[in-house]
């Protein structure tokens, strides 16, 4: 009974984090902020979901369910390492791809005739630009 409530709490918090991830991926204005939303929420919500499944499997305690729970624990461990690594690879590729990022002036891109800000509008600022 208590284990069931724990399963429900874990799954609902995982769903909450996944909703936050989805809202971030859809609504954020910028590639980098989208990666920020996806990299954290995705890992944590997956951990919560699989942790709830592990608790559910441990409800009827036997050798088989223990083996399955161990495998699930391995998957959780793997995702906890692999998902931030994949996120890092994606953001590295995006940085080298020079994906333009959100600035305050890029919200005003639609207004024409704003000549004093025009040179700031096209793309973002990168550390390589400082080297001259």
């Amino acid at each position: 009974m208590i284990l069931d409530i724990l399963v429900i709490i874990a799954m609902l918090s995982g769903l909450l984090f996944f909703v936050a991830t989805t809202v971030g991926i859809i609504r954020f204005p910028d590639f980098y902020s989208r990666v920020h939303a996806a990299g954290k929420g995705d890992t944590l919500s997956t951990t919560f979901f699989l942790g709830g499944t592990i608790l559910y499997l441990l409800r009827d305690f036997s050798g088989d369910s223990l083996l399955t729970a161990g495998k699930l624990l391995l998957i959780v461990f793997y995702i906890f390492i692999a998902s931030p690594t994949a996120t890092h690879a994606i953001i590295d590729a995006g940085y080298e791809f020079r994906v333009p990022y959100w600035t305050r002036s890029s919200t005003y891109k639609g207004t024409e005739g704003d000549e004093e800000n025009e040179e700031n509008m096209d793309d973002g600022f990168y550390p390589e630009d400082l080297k001259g």
Partner: protein
Amino acid sequence: MNLEPFFIAMAVAILFLMLCNLYRVVAGPTVIDRMLGMNVIGTKTTVLIVLIGVIDGRVDLFIDITLAYALLNFITTLAAARFYQRLAQPVPHEPRESLMAPSAGPEVEDADAPEAAADQDRKETP
């Protein structure tokens, strides 16, 4: 307590949110955005497979599929990210002198002299 309806509701909710993430894959302004959306969808697919196994009552069968899918998703994302990273830099990296061992100095210079001249030419042509 019978948790099966709860698991079915969770699976449907995850599926719906995955469809919402598919918007970013379809409408993403750059390729990297699409990759990001597909990474999230793939990670959630592992959860979905485990939930299907729990609903079906055969988790021990589905767990191996989940493991394989997680590995495959990670490798796919890494390969695509590396591909677009290499695509972004048309000129290959030159070795930085500060990173080279000082003992390898004169030999490497002699051996690389024609190459360095060719490098110079290639730089000046554009």
